[in-house]
C-alpha cells in the first residue's frame, strides 16, 4: 500500500524525521535483528505507524504474532500506544488497532493480556468488559486475576460490576481483590453505610480505612467530616488514620466551624505534641496554625 498523503505533503524539514522513523520501523519489525535492537527501534517507530498503512500492518503483525519474542511484542504495543496519542493522524489506524487488541486479549502472556485489556477498558470497550465480567463469574475463563479485573472495570462507572464486586467482598480471594472491590464500590451511591462502618472499624487495615475515608468523602461528605472529627477525638485510635482524618478536615472542612471547635483543636494539639511520627505532627501544627493556635 502506498504512503498516505500526509507524508507527501510534509516539507523537507519533516521528511528526514519521517525517513528515520521508517528505517527504525524496518528494524523493529525485522526478525533478523536482535531483540535489543528491535526494542530500541520501536521507540522511533510511532511516526511511521501513523503515516503508512504498510508500516502499521507490519507493527500490528508483530503484536499479533505469538512466535515473536514477548519483549518485542510489548515494545510494539508501547509504540502503537504512543502513536495513538496523535489522535488525528491515528484516526485511520484505529480500526485495525482495536481489532488487533481484541485478538491478543487472550494471549498466553499474562503481561500482554493485562496491558491490552487495560487499553480496551479505557476505551470502554464492550468486548473487554464482557471478558472481564465473565472471568469474575467463572474463574476458569478469567484472563486476569480478580483484583486486576475489578481495577480495570472501575474505568467505566457504567460497567455492570457492582454485583461482582460485592460478591468478591463477601468472599475475597486475597487482600488485593478486597481492596479493589472496595475502590470500585466507592462509586456506588448506596455504599456509604458500608464505608462508614469500615472507617470506624479499628480492626481494619489502615489502607482499607483510608479508602473508606476517601469513598465516604464522595458519597456522604458531611458524614466523613463527622467521623473524621470523632477519630481525632478518640485517644485510642491510630495515628495514621488520625492523620488521614485531619487531612480531610483541613482540606475539605468548614473552616469557620472548625475554628470554633475547641474540643477538636485541643485534640489536634495533643496529637501534634504526642508520640506520632514527625510528619503527622507537622500536619497537626499546620492545621492549628490555620486557626491561630
Amino acid at each position, binding site marked *: 500500500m502506498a504512503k498516505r498523503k500526509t507524508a507527501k505533503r510534509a516539507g523537507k524539514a519533516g521528511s528526514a*524525521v519521517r525517513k528515520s522513523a521508517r528505517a527504525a520501523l524496518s528494524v523493529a519489525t525485522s526478525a533478523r535483528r536482535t531483540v535489543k535492537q528491535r526494542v530500541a527501534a520501536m*521507540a522511533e517507530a510511532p511516526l511511521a505507524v501513523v503515516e503508512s498503512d504498510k508500516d502499521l500492518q507490519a507493527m500490528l503483525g508483530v503484536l499479533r504474532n505469538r512466535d515473536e519474542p514477548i519483549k518485542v511484542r510489548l515494545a510494539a504495543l508501547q509504540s502503537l500506544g504512543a502513536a495513538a496519542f496523535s489522535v488525528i493522524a491515528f484516526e485511520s489506524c484505529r480500526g485495525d488497532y482495536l481489532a488487533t487488541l481484541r485478538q491478543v486479549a487472550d494471549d498466553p502472556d499474562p503481561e500482554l493480556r493485562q496491558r491490552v485489556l487495560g487499553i480496551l477498558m479505557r476505551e470502554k470497550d464492550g468486548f473487554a468488559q464482557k471478558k472481564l465480567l465473565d472471568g469474575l463469574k467463572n474463574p476458569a475463563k478469567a484472563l486476569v486475576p480478580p483484583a486486576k479485573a475489578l481495577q480495570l472495570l472501575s474505568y467505566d462507572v457504567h460497567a455492570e460490576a457492582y454485583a461482582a464486586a460485592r460478591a468478591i467482598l463477601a468472599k475475597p480471594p486475597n487482600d488485593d481483590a478486597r481492596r479493589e472491590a472496595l475502590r470500585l464500590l466507592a462509586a456506588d451511591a448506596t455504599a456509604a453505610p458500608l464505608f462508614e462502618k469500615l472507617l470506624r472499624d479499628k480492626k481494619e487495615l489502615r489502607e482499607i480505612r483510608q479508602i473508606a475515608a*476517601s469513598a465516604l468523602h464522595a458519597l456522604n461528605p458531611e458524614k466523613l467530616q463527622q467521623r473524621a472529627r470523632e477519630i481525632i477525638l478518640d485517644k485510642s485510635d491510630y495515628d495514621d488514620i488520625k492523620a488521614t482524618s485531619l*487531612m480531610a478536615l483541613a482540606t475539605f472542612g468548614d473552616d469557620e466551624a472548625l475554628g470554633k471547635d475547641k474540643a477538636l483543636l485541643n485534640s489536634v494539639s495533643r496529637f501534634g505534641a504526642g508520640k506520632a511520627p514527625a510528619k503527622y505532627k507537622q500536619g497537626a501544627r499546620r492545621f492549628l496554625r490555620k486557626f491561630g493556635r
Partner: protein
Amino acid sequence: MDVELQINNTPNPKARFVSWVPSPCRIRVTNPLGAPAPIVNLKITGVSAAGGGAVVFRGGATGAFASSVTLPVPTNGTSVPFFVAGKFGQPSTNNGDVTIQARNGTTLVGSVPVMVRIRKNANTLTTGERNRFVAAFAQLNNQGLGRFADFRNMHVSVSLPQAHGAPGFLPWHRAYLLDLERELQAIDPSVALPYWRFDQPAPNIFTPDFFGASNALGTVQFAATNPLQFWKTDGVQGVNRRPLFNTATAPPGLRTEAQTIAIGTQFPAFRTMEGNPHGFAHTSFGGSIQDPATAPKDPLFFLLHCNVDRLWAKWQRQNGRFNPAVAASYDSNPNNRPGHNLPDTMWPWNGVTGGTRPPTAPGGAMAASPCVGAPGPQPRVQDCLDYQGAIGAPARMGFDYDDAKFI
C-alpha cells in the same frame, strides 16, 4: 518620605510575582514629607531571604540587568518606570522571599515582598513546595467536584482532535497547562506547576508523599498526610498507574532532552515529538495516563506535559522560534483543521461548540492572571508561541522554566 512600588504595573498585591522575563514596574512618591528636593534619587534593590529567590533590575525596556537600579523620582507623585526580573538560577521557594526595597540614601522609603515564581523540576522541589502543590491540586480536584472537573472534561475522546495529532498539539497544551496553573495559583499563589523530567531519574516524584507509590497491581497509594488520597475523577476513586520501569531510574526508550531538541530546526519536524518522547512517556505506564482519553485522570499528566512544554520552550530558544510570522515557528497548512491554524481561536476557551468543535465548551474562558494580560480569555494558536514576550513584550504569559533563560 514614602514611596509606592508597583510590580507588574499594578498596586494589586496579588501581582507581586515575577519570572525571568522583565516585569514592568513603577515607583512613585506617595508622601513627599522630608524629601530633600523636587526629584530624589532612589536606589532600588532586592533583598533575599535565606534560600530565597533573587531579582535584578534595569531602568528601561532594554539594556543589561544589575542587582540594583537608581532612579530619579519626582516628589510630585509622578510614576517612574523600571523593570524587575528573577535572577536566572535563583528562583524563590516561598512566597515573598525576596523584598524589593527603595532607599533614599540609607533610608528605607518603601518595600514590597515578591516571589520569583518559576516552574521547577518536581524531583527537586523543597518539602514546602511539594506540600503546597499537592494541597492546591487536591483542593482543585475536591472529590472530583472542583474546577479540575473542567480540565478533565477538556481532554476526553470528543475533544482530543482539538489537541492531538496536528500542529496545534503544543500550543493547545501550553494554554491548557497555563489555565490549570492559574487556577492552582488562585488557591495558593505561591504554587507553580512543576515538571517531570522524564529523561532523568525522578525517584522523589513517585513517593507516597508526592504523586504516590504504585503497588504491583498499579493502584497508587498515598501517605496519610497527602491530600491526594482523596483524588477522584469521573466519579471514580484514586489513581491507577503502573510504572513499566523502575521509578528510581528514567523510563527507557525515551528521547533525551538533547535528542528531542535536535529532532529538527523546523516546527513540522519538531512537532513529531508528540510520538517520542511525549507518547512514550505516557506509555511508560499502565493505567489512566497510558491512553489519550483518560490520561488527565492521573495528576502526573500535568507534570509530564509541563516537561513537554519545557522542551518546546528550550527548542524555541535554541532555534529562535517565538515569532509566529516566521514560517519555521509553526506548521501552517491550508488543510489544517480548525483550531490548528495560527489565527484560529482554541477550544474550549473560545466557547465555540458544534460542527467541527466539541458539543460543549467546559470551563469557559482562560483564567486571568493579575500579573500579565496574555494570552487573553480566548487564546489563538499564535498567542501561545511567544510565551516570554521575546517578540512583543505584551505577549508574555507569566511563566518560566528554571532552566530556560529569557532571551
